[in-house]
Each structure stands twice: as C-alpha cells, then as structure tokens.
C-alpha cells in the first residue's frame, strides 16, 4: 500500500513521512476490514436464516407429506391435520385484493406528484407519503380494527373482520411503496419524450398518460412487485382485522388466515410436529418472497433504475 501511494505521488518519502504513511495505511486497512466484516454479517444473516428454515422446515414437511401439506385444505393441529392450502390461498387473495386497492391509487398519486402537482403541493405531499411509510404496522392494524372493521360491519353485515377489511388495509399499507418507486421511475423519464409529444400537438394529459407513463412502465411494474412483497409478508396488521379462520374464504366478508398470521398466532404454544409445520409454512412464505425478489431484480435491471 505504502509503495503504491508513493508511486502515485511520484515523491520520495523521508523517514518521517514514511512512518506517517504506514500509520495511515494501517488505519485504512483497519477500516476496510471493518466494512468487510459488516458486509459479511449481512450476508451471514441471510444464509443462516435460509439454513435454519430449510433444516427445520423440510423434515416436518416430509413427515406430513409434501403434497398433503401444500394442498391439504384442513388445518387442525389437534387432529394432526396440517394442510396449508387455506393459508396459501388466503395470502394470495389478500395480496390480490390489496393490489386492486393500492395499485390504481398509488400509480395515480405518483403521476400526480411527478407531473401535475405544484411545488407547494409537493412540499406537503412528499412528507405525508414518507410518514405513511413510517407508520408501524400494528398502528395500521389498530386503525383497521377501530375504523375499517366497524365500517364493513355497518355497511355489509357480518362481524367485519374479513378478507375485505384485510384487502383495504393492506392496500393502504402498500401505497407508499408503490408511490415512491413509481414516482422516481416517472421522474427518470427523459423530458425530451414529453416535449416531443407536446410538439406534436398533444395536451399535457395526453403526453403524460400516453408517453411518459408507458416509458416508465418497467419501473412502475417494479413498484407493484415491491408492493406484493410488502403485502404478502405483512403479519400483524392483517391478523388484527382478518378474522383468521383457517378456512378457504368463499366471500369477501368471510374471515381469512394468511401464511404469516398462521405462524404468528400459533408459534407461541406449538410443539413437535405442529412447530415444524409452522416452520414449514415459513419456508413456503420464503419461497414466495424469493420469487418476488427475483422478479423485482429482473424488472429493475430492465427499467435501468
């Protein structure tokens, strides 16, 4: 190191400076070592989680029978029935519903912030969106419990804790993710596209919706994928409003249990095969998240973000 440094400077060091340089060098390598260690901890954590999940989840899954476990529709640990189909479907339904609520609202908000809002408006909206992102999920859950659930009970009957409540609440929770990622994708669209459209006689709205938005489509799709990740991984808020029946729901007003809430609700007292079945549930969730991340990185590369 010391040699390279003096080479670069092209200066011959006296003995005093040489000492100085080696000290500096030592400090630099120490810092580099620290950073490398920090990076290793991060990677190690991921590897450990993977190893733990697979080591503890796979044997249980095999003992139950992989097929029975994944496609079984009855979850009754007391009767040794461990079918997680209701929870897989529950997670998918809740996520799909959240997307129906959150994606249109989020994309339109991002469009508004990127191309329509005045600077004064933005000053107010940007912090609002980041605040929404920072609200803890248990607070969201509480909001759902005291506002959305009673509202659904009033409007549609039933007890309110339902698939619908979970969809609406999760839809709100994924808004900040969709808004911020979509907005930066929209802001990254070259101004020349917009100007080109205007020069052809297009109005502002047409230029934005027909040229700018399509140009940002990979980034917007990436925001949706991130939103899916957020929705499928959410446990606390969903658990507070979804009713949590381990049954495949046949209506929007029925209760639903997701993969995450299944784990959270029963992990506290589960033992033996029941415990292993819950860890196996986490493996399934992990596979979902992994594929979503993969999809996201593919889209991200294509969007050039």
């Amino acid at each position, binding site marked *: 190191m010391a040699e390279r440094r003096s080479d670069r400077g092209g200066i011959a060091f006296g003995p005093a400076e040489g000492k100085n340089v080696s000290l500096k060098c030592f400090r630099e390598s120490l810092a580099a070592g620290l950073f490398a260690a920090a990076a290793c901890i991060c990677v190690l954590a991921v590897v450990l989680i993977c190893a733990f999940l697979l080591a503890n989840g796979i044997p249980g899954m095999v003992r139950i029978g992989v097929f029975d476990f994944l496609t079984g529709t009855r979850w009754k640990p007391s009767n040794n029935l461990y079918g997680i189909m209701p929870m897989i479907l529950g997670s998918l339904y809740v996520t799909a519903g959240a997307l129906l609520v959150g994606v249109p609202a989020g994309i339109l908000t991002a469009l508004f912030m990127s191309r329509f809002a005045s600077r004064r408006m933005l000053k107010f909206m940007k912090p609002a969106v980041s605040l929404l992102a920072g609200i803890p999920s248990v607070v969201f859950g509480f909001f759902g419990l005291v506002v959305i659930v009673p509202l659904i009970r009033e409007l549609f009957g039933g007890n309110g804790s339902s698939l619908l409540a979970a969809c609406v609440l999760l839809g709100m929770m994924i808004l900040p993710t969709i808004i911020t990622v979509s907005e930066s994708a929209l802001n990254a669209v070259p101004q020349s596209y917009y100007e080109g459209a205007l*020069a052809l006689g*297009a109005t502002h709205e047409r230029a934005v919706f*027909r040229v700018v938005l399509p140009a940002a489509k990979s980034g917007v799709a990436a925001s949706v994928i991130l939103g899916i990740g957020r929705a499928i991984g959410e446990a606390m808020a969903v658990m507070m409003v979804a009713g949590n029946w381990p049954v495949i729901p046949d209506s929007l007003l029925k209760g639903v249990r997701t993969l995450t809430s299944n784990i959270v609700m029963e992990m506290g007292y589960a033992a033996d095969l029941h415990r292993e079945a819950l860890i196996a549930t986490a493996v399934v969730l992990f596979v979902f998240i992994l594929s979503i991340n993969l999809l996201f990185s593919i889209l991200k590369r294509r969007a050039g973000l």
Partner: protein
Amino acid sequence: MAKFEIENLNLWYGSHHALKHVSLSIEALKITALIGPSGCGKSTLLKTLNRMNDLVEGCRITGRVLLDGQDVYGGMDTSLLRRRVGMVFQKPNPFPMSVYDNVAFGPRTHGIRGKARLDDIVERSLRAAAIWDELKDCLKKDALRLSGGQQQRLCIARALAVEPEVLLMDEPTSALDPISTSRIEDLVVSLKQNYTIIIVTHNMQQAARISDRTAFFLLGELVEYGDTEKLFSLPRDKRTENYITGRFG
C-alpha cells in the same frame, strides 16, 4: 409570401433579455437558416414559433408573432398551433415504442382512428422522410433500437404525420455522423416543396448548402437577414463577416 411575420419580438428568461427587438418575415416554402454563436437566441426564437417556450418558467414575451396573419400569442390554441408548426429536436427523441406507434402518435392525438387510415399516414410519412425502404419490414421494431440517423429521420416522419405547414428544426444533425447528416440535408431540401422550413444550425456550411434565406443572430439581436448567397458572399455587417469567416464564435 410570408408564412411567419415576427414583429418587434422581445423575450426574457427571468431577467435575462434573450431576444431583443427581433423583426423578420419568413417566407413560405423556403428554407430559412438561423445561425449565430451559442446563446445568441436562435433556438429561443425557434421555440417561440410553436410556443415550446411556454414550458420554460419565467419566460416573458412582448411583440407579435403572426402565422398567416394570426397572432400565435393572441389566444391561439397551442395544440392546433403545434399541429401546423411541427418540430424536430436537436437530439433524436423517438418515443420508447414501435416505429409504427411513433409515427401514428400525432394523428391519433388529433383524433384519427381506423387502421387503414393510420397505415396510409404512416407509410406516406415514412416515405416523405426517406426512411420507408429501410423500415417497412420492421414497423413493429422498438424505435430506440434504430441508429441515430434513422431515429432522427423517424422523428421527421413523426412530425410530418400530422401534416404541418411549417417544420422547425433545432440543429437536427448536430448529434449525427457525416453520412446521416448529408442524408438529412438532402431530405430537408426535398421537403421544401411542401413545407416551410426553419432550421437552426451551428454549421455554416450547412446553412450555405441548403438554405434560401439566412438570419444571423448575435447576443439576442438579429444582425443581418437576407438571401443566403448574398449573406455569405457579401455580408453587409462587419459582425456577420467576422462570424462567417470564423473570426469568432
């Protein structure tokens, strides 16, 4: 016959006085070149003609710009104005969509539907821009994957598709190689039959080669305006002479 009549035009960007008392009349079905060193206001003048300066914050204009006797800044619909006065930008800016959709964007904007009609417009526009033979078999190709010269001719086709009367070109060849440049120059000369063309260029040889009339700008002022041949051979103003002989700029 004058297509554009510019009367005592002044333009400010904030406190910067970018165009000073500019008056000139631009003849129909001629190529008019605007030349001058960077920052002399020639691109600014071009953008006042189709009101693209409206996008610039703090831009203020006095004076009149008449298109066929109608004041461009007197309540004319900008969408209609830009349909009549097309623009080709310095950097080729095709939309990130197919060749076909690029050309069809303008007509669709102005309410033309129906595949047969659009097909016809796309073909005619690409032919007019001398790029039909190269692209007729790949109309579905992503426009961003064309070469720079092809992209610029596609942008010209896109501008022609809305059947403008005037074509504004803002240094259309400055980002291109010499071969693409000469193809675009040939194209511009051939377009003169049907369109009034106003071209901003840094390249004096280009102005001399293709234009009928040339306007020389310096620091926001119109210094000299006349027939290209005369302006280049016998400039009346000392500053014009210095510029075209390469003494500054």
